């Protein structure tokens, strides 16, 4: 094989190459995002206000947290279909723990909140260990494993709650972690937690052996094995991290509504995968960065808020989201071709 000849279009190497490299690295998303904002702004000027921008940031932060969770398993060529229902199950269970300790805020509130949050995280770890062990050590397809886990978590969520929302959570949860709270007087809690999760994820992915290994394993599992990496353990860890971050997302959502919701989770799987993949995380594994998740989450949020503001029918919105997922995968292929 001879050395690959570089693309040399007529415009000259400078501008064109730089443009292509930009698309290759970040995808078409930044451009689409700006275009969408301008488009919605033209139809509904309210869209382009500071107030709305903050709203978008807040809405997006929930999704970005879940998309970041999803990214850890997407990197290893897996995915987590159980994520949405796990959110429901965790929401219900941690709500019940909090209500049991301090019903309507009557009792040791701090203990109730800590116990609720710890329960949520513990449940996340358990779900992740189960998913991860089955996928990594028993070589069962993640589709089957996480679909099964979805059934289990759904059963738990509806059985323990009897199918009804759990009321009576101490209001402090909402003031501390809900949308109306403000850390240091200005920072919206969901945005703050989201940034925290993104920061930690960034460090794990770029600065630890585990993160590096996830990329290598996702890009070529056999090569990782031949290179002596503990690939099974690392794949399992990706599911644990995924479910742990999902648990954080579940706490945020419980705080948002102030209730344990047994049925919020359903659509979150599609949304989280859509956001990650639209952002540029590859379904073929081994590729994807934190910035991709952020942009993908923003895209989906901008779309859904924009469509609400311009009064597009809710069911039609589903159609648009579905198209976004498929288009994103298509563009991903295109991006790859540009790169070569």
């Amino acid at each position, binding site marked *: *094989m*001879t*050395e*690959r*000849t570089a693309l040399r279009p007529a415009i000259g190497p400078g501008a064109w190459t730089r443009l292509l490299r930009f698309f290759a690295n970040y995808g078409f998303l930044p451009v689409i995002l700006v275009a969408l904002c301008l488009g919605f702004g033209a139809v509904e000027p309210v869209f382009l206000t500071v107030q709305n921008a903050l709203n978008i940031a807040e809405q997006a932060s929930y999704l970005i947290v879940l998309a970041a969770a999803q990214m850890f398993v997407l990197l290893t060529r897996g995915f987590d279909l159980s994520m949405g229902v796990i959110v429901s199950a965790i929401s219900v269970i941690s709500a019940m723990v909090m209500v049991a300790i301090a019903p309507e805020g009557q009792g040791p509130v701090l203990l109730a909140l800590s116990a609720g949050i710890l329960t949520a995280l513990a449940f996340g770890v358990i779900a992740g260990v189960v998913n991860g062990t089955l996928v990594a050590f028993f070589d069962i397809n993640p589709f089957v494993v996480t679909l099964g886990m979805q059934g289990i978590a759904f059963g738990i969520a509806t059985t323990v709650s009897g199918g009804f929302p759990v009321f009576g959570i101490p209001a402090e949860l909402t003031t501390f972690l809900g949308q109306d709270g403000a850390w240091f007087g200005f920072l919206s809690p969901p945005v703050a937690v989201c940034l925290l999760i993104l920061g930690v994820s960034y460090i794990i992915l*770029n*600065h*630890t*052996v*585990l993160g*590096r*290994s996830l*990329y*290598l394993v996702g*890009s*070529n599992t*056999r*090569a*990782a*094995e*031949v*290179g*002596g*990496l*503990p690939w099974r353990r690392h794949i399992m860890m990706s599911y644990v991290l995924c479910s742990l971050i999902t648990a954080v997302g579940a706490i945020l959502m419980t705080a948002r509504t102030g209730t344990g919701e047994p049925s919020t989770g359903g659509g979150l799987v599609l949304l989280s995968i859509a956001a990650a993949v639209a952002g540029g995380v*590859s379904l*073929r594994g*081994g*590729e994807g960065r934190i910035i991709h998740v952020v942009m993908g989450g923003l895209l989906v949020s901008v779309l859904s808020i924009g469509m609400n503001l311009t009064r597009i029918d809710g069911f039609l919105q589903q159609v648009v989201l579905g198209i976004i997922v498929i288009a994103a995968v298509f563009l991903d292929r295109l991006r790859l071709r540009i*790169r*070569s």
Partner: protein
Amino acid sequence: MPFALHLVSSHGIAPAPPLIEMTGIQKRFPGVLALDQIDFTLNPGEVHVLFGENGAGKSTLINVMAGTHHHDGGTYAYCGQALTDLSPHRAREIGICPVFQEFSLASDLTIEENLFLGREICRGGILDKAEMRARVARVLADLRFDLPPRAKVSTLSRAEQQMTEIAKALLQDIRVLILDEPTASLSERETERLFEIIADLKRKGVGIVYVSHRMVEIKRLADRVTVLRDGRRVGTVEAAAVSETKLIEMMIGRSFGAMFPDIAHRPGRVMLETRGLTTADGLVREADFTVQAGEVVGIAGLVGCGKSELARAIFGLNEVQSGAIMLEGQQVTQPSPATMLQSGLCYFPSDRVAEGLALARPVRENMTLAALNLPDFVKSGFLRLRREKDRAREMIAKLGLAPPDPEKRVEFLSGGNKQKVMLARGIAREVKVYLFDEPTVGIDVGAKAEIYKLIKEVAESGAAVVVISSELHEVVYLSNRAYVMSGGRLVVELRGLEITEAAILSHFFDRKPATTVGVGAPGTI
């Protein structure tokens, strides 16, 4: 007669036009000029050998001949008529039949079904099985191939599949037969039979394009030899008038000395030893094998003889059933890539794309892939990125990687550079035993020479080196000792000057383990 010729009757007297006349053939794949200005003629009754290394363009050229690829420049004439838009089907119709190395057989169908696949004989829209069966029986009898016509292809050995392919090609009237390394999986007896068939076809005026890099076959069969290198034609020579050395030098594009460095072997203590090693899949049987510090040991053998599996078993990639693996005198109980790397043994897989590299990741990450447990690159779970980048740059400079960019994604590198990136893991950490599995497959000559140089360096610096290769000259010119493997057994051990191409080839079909070490009988093929 199944391969009687109704069309051609050149008895070598009348000046028939060449069967195939190619001038200035060009073929471009994305990013690669696979064929550049190739001229090639094939006369009736001629065996024209295509000679060259992997990736030289031989396969592309025969694919153009057979209509699988379309050339994008030059002209291709068949019996004096220009061919355009040739499809594989059309090629077969006009009498150009290829037998590729990748078999075109449907594995769930039987031999007879395969032979007529796509050209079934029908009577009134219904398959005429009786007629097809009779014709299959006839062609197999003519060829004296011992094949069960009703057996499913998936149950056949590689050699039997190869014979089925040949029978398939000869089922119809042919004028050009293209054989792509046909003997790579045939036994001596089957090879002999194939050569008789070729002689027979020659007499009938069939032209034969024969791809091979085995000297003995070229000497025996070839009328003319065309040597290809890096997609270009180096030259076409009369086989009778050219020496072996000359051919190899044409192929590699440089003198022997420049290609194969002189390695000063200084065999020291035994670093790696296997005793009666048998793998669970049965591909390696009772292998007794040693390699000492400071020497290069070659392992040669046919595809599927178990030479690769031996190394993989040692590295923990193939399950061991019985026998012992001793590394520096210590028995290894549970070999795994992680533990073997930890003890200083590294295996470099032959399929670097499938098993060696994370293609979507940059050069730097691939270079340190097997060293992520060393304090050099990692401190309590965290990567030492700056240090890693520095080390990557050093390794890139040492290996002469082009372009010297540690952040380049590996998938965009050429075959040779990919190989260098994989070999970097032997530099990134301390390795005392190197197991190279087909270290130069599919890479260009320059990169090959550099890899041989690297092998020389590590061997002379005291490491034990094993080179497993299907390129015979690699084993011949690099090894201090060489083993030949056949049917899962190490059948002979050759030393020093005993290591010749003929000696190695003569043991390719031995079935007895090497009880006595001795000189192979050269020239038995």
